[in-house]
C-alpha cells in the first residue's frame, strides 16, 4: 500500500483528494435531509474562514483576533449593495438609487471592501508587536459592532436585516450547497497555491524570525500587509457569501463566538497547513451546529443550566488540555509511531 502511494505524484494525490471530497459531498447531498445539507453548505463557507485565518496566523505568524471584522465587512457590503434602499433618509441617500447588482459581483465587492480594510488595518497595526497587536485586533470587532448599532437605520442594528429570498445564492438548499462547495474549493485552491509559492515562503520566513527576514532583505512590512490583504479578502468573500446563503445579515458575523470557532478550527486542524483548518473547520462547525443538537435535549429536560454552547466549550477545554499542541499534531504523531 505504502509503496503504491509512494509512487503516486504529490500533485496527483492532491487532485485525487479533491475528487474524493467532491464525490462524498455529492453523495451526501443526495441522501441527507434538507436541514443537514443547509448546515453542510455553511460549513464549507466556514472552512474558508478557517483557512484564511491560517494565512495570517499560521503562515505570517501574527495572532489576529479580529478576523471577524473582515467577515462582517464583506457581509454588510454585499447586503447594502443588494438593499440600497436602506440608505434612504441618510447622508448616503444618493446611493439608494443604485441599480440591481448581480449576486456574484456583489460578493466580489464584499471581498474587495474587506481587502481594503485589511490593508488599512495591516498598515495601522504595523508598529504593534506581539500581544499589543493581538489585543488591538481583539478590540476592533467591537468597534464595528457599535457602528452597526449606532447607524441602525442603515445597518439594521443588533438584529440586522434581510436581503430577501430572491437574492440568495440559489433558490434551493441544494443549489446553495453546491455553490458554497464550489466557492470553498476555488478559494482553498487559490490560497494553497499562494502559500506554496515564493510568496508563501517569504511569509514563513517572516513568521519564523523577523530579524532574520529583514537581514535577508525581505521587506517584512510589505509581506505582513500582503498577508492581511489576502486573508481579509477571502474572509470578506465568505462573509458576503454567507449573507446570500442565509438571506440575512447581522452583527453576529462580527462577534466573538465566531472568532473562537475559527481559532478552534485552525488550531485543532493544525496551524500552518492548509488541510488542517479544512478538517478542523469541518469538525468544529458540524459539531457546533449539528451533532450536539440531539445530545442537548436530554440535558435541558433535566433542568440543568446547560445548552449546546456550553457542551461545546467544555469539549473544547478538554481537547485543549489533552492536546495542547493541536489535535492534528497529536494524531499525526500517534499515527507515525504506529
Amino acid at each position, binding site marked *: 500500500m505504502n509503496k503504491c*502511494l*509512494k509512487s503516486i505524484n504529490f500533485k496527483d494525490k492532491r487532485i485525487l483528494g479533491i475528487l*474524493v471530497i467532491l464525490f462524498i459531498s455529492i453523495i451526501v447531498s443526495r441522501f*441527507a435531509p434538507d436541514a443537514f445539507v443547509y448546515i453542510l453548505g455553511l460549513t464549507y463557507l466556514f472552512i474558508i474562514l478557517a483557512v484564511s485565518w491560517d494565512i495570517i496566523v499560521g503562515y505570517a505568524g501574527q495572532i489576529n483576533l479580529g478576523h471577524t471584522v473582515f467577515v462582517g465587512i464583506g457581509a454588510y457590503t454585499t447586503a447594502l449593495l443588494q438593499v440600497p434602499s436602506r440608505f434612504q433618509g441618510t447622508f448616503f441617500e444618493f446611493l439608494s438609487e443604485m441599480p440591481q447588482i448581480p449576486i456574484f459581483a456583489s460578493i466580489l465587492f464584499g471581498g474587495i471592501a474587506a481587502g481594503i480594510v485589511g490593508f488599512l488595518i495591516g498598515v495601522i497595526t504595523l508598529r504593534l508587536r506581539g500581544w499589543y497587536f493581538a489585543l488591538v485586533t481583539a478590540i476592533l470587532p467591537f468597534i464595528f459592532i457599535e457602528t452597526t448599532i449606532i447607524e441602525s437605520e442603515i445597518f439594521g442594528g443588533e438584529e440586522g436585516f434581510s436581503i430577501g429570498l430572491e437574492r440568495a445564492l440559489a433558490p434551493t438548499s441544494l443549489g446553495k450547497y453546491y455553490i458554497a462547495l464550489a466557492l470553498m474549493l476555488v478559494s482553498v485552491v487559490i490560497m494553497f497555491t499562494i502559500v506554496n509559492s515564493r510568496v508563501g515562503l517569504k511569509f514563513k520566513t517572516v513568521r519564523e524570525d523577523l530579524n532574520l527576514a529583514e537581514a535577508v532583505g525581505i521587506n517584512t512590512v510589505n509581506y505582513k500587509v500582503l498577508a492581511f490583504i489576502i486573508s481579509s479578502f477571502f474572509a470578506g468573500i465568505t462573509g458576503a457569501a454567507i449573507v446570500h446563503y442565509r438571506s440575512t445579515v447581522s452583527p453576529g458575523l462580527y462577534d466573538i463566538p465566531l472568532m473562537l470557532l475559527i481559532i478552534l478550527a485552525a488550531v485543532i486542524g493544525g496551524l500552518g497547513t492548509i488541510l488542517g483548518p479544512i478538517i478542523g473547520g469541518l469538525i468544529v462547525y458540524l459539531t457546533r451546529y449539528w451533532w450536539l443538537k440531539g445530545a442537548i435535549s436530554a440535558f435541558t429536560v433535566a433542568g440543568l443550566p446547560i445548552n449546546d454552547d456550553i457542551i461545546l466549550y467544555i469539549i473544547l477545554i478538554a481537547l485543549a488540555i489533552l492536546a495542547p499542541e493541536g489535535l492534528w499534531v497529536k494524531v499525526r504523531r500517534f*499515527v507515525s509511531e504506529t
Partner: protein
Amino acid sequence: MKILSKRKISRREYLKYAAAGVVVAAGAIGGYAAWQSTRKPLEKEEIIIGVLAPMATRQGSVQRDAAALAIEEINATGGILGVPIKMVVGDDKLDPDAAVSELRRLVTVENADVLTGGYSSGIMAATMEPMAELKTVFLADASSPAHPAKVAEDYEKYKYWFRITQNNGASFAFDMADMIDMLRGKGVPVDKIYIIRDEHVWADDVEKFFNPLLTERNVEVVKNVKIPRGYTEYEPLIIEAHDLGSQVILPIVALSGTGDVLAKHWATLKLPVLLAGHDLAALDLGFWEKTEGACNYYIFIADGGVVQTAPPTSVCTNFIENYTKKYGHPPEAHQGYGAYDAVYLYKMAVEEAAKAGAADPLDSDTIVKYLEKLATLESPVELTRNIAFYPPGDENKWDHDLAWGDKYVRNWISEWIDGKWYQIWPEDKANAELKLPPWFK
C-alpha cells in the same frame, strides 16, 4: 533516511484525505439516521405544533410552557379532530443563524404543521424568509411594523404570518398618548416630557406615530436620548430631565435590559419627575424584588393585553390559574398568553376548515383562509384576550396584525403600587387608582 521520510509524508497525506472523507461520511450517515428516526409517514397520527423562541429567556420559555399546557388540555379532550397534538421545540438563541436553521429543522425534520413563537423583531424578520419558503403558518410575537408590511407587500409569499401575541409596536404610541391624557385628567400637568429610548429601529417606528400625537396635545419633548443595550448611566439623565423642566420621564425601552437600574436611580434621586412610559423590564412579576421596591409608582403600558392581576376574560383567569397550578407560578411573561391563544386559535381554524369540508384542513393555505375568517374585527375570538387580525389590504399595512383597541388587545396602562402590579386605566377595566409618588408635588 530519505525513503523513510517520504513514506511518512505519503501516509500523512493519505490520512488527511481519508479523515476528511470519513468525517463527511459520518456526518451524512448520522444525519440520515436522525432523519429516518424522526420522519413519520404522512397519514396523520399526530398534529405537530412547533414552538420557536429564545428558550434561555423567560419570554421564550413561557411560550413553550404555555403551549404545553394548551396542548395538554386539548389532548385531554381528544385532540384536534380526534388526533393528538405533539409539541416540538426550537431555540432561536436570539441569533438569526440559529433561528433560521431551527425553523428549517422544525418544519423539515420534525414535520411541524404550524409554528408559534418569536420575541425579537430582527429574528422574526429573518425567520419570515424560511417560513415563506417552506409555507408554514406562523402565529407570532415581536412588535415590528416591518413584519405586517411584508405581508402587505407580497401577500402570496408572506401570508402565513399572523401576529397574535402583542400589538404592533407603533400602537404603543396610542397607548402612551392615552396615558398622558389620563395623567392630565387626574390633575397632573404634562407639557414637557423627557424621552429615553432604545437605539433600535423599533423605537423609531413608535416615534413616527407618537410625535404627531404629542403635537396635538401640545406636549414638548425637551430631549430625546437614545441608549444602547446595557446602558446604565441614568442618574445624569434623570437630573437633566428635571433641570429642563419636564414633569415626566418617558422611557420607550425594551432592549436596554437595564430598566431596574433606571428605577433604582429614579427612586434614589427622588426628584419631582414621574417615570411613565414603556419599559419591558417593568413588565416582569419579579420586578419589585429585583429593584427592592424602587419601582414603586412606576407607570407603564403593559404589552400583550393582560395585566396579570386583572385578567380581561374568563379564559384568561382560568389559564393563569391552571398555569400556576402546573408550574408553581403565574406566567412569567405576556408571551405566554400569545402562545396559549395560538394553539387554541389553530385548533379552531382546523375545526372550521374541516366543518366546511376542506380537503386537507391542515394545509397551510387553507389555515390562512380560516384564520382570516375566524378572527375578524367585527367578531373577535375570545381566548385569554380578544383576538382579531387586520384583513389583507389594511390601510396602515398592518395586514394580519393583532387588532388594537379596548375591544381587542391593547397595552393597558398599569402601575407598580406597594409591591403589586395593577391596571389603572381604562377605568372600567382598572383594579386600582393612579397613585403618585409622595415626593412628586
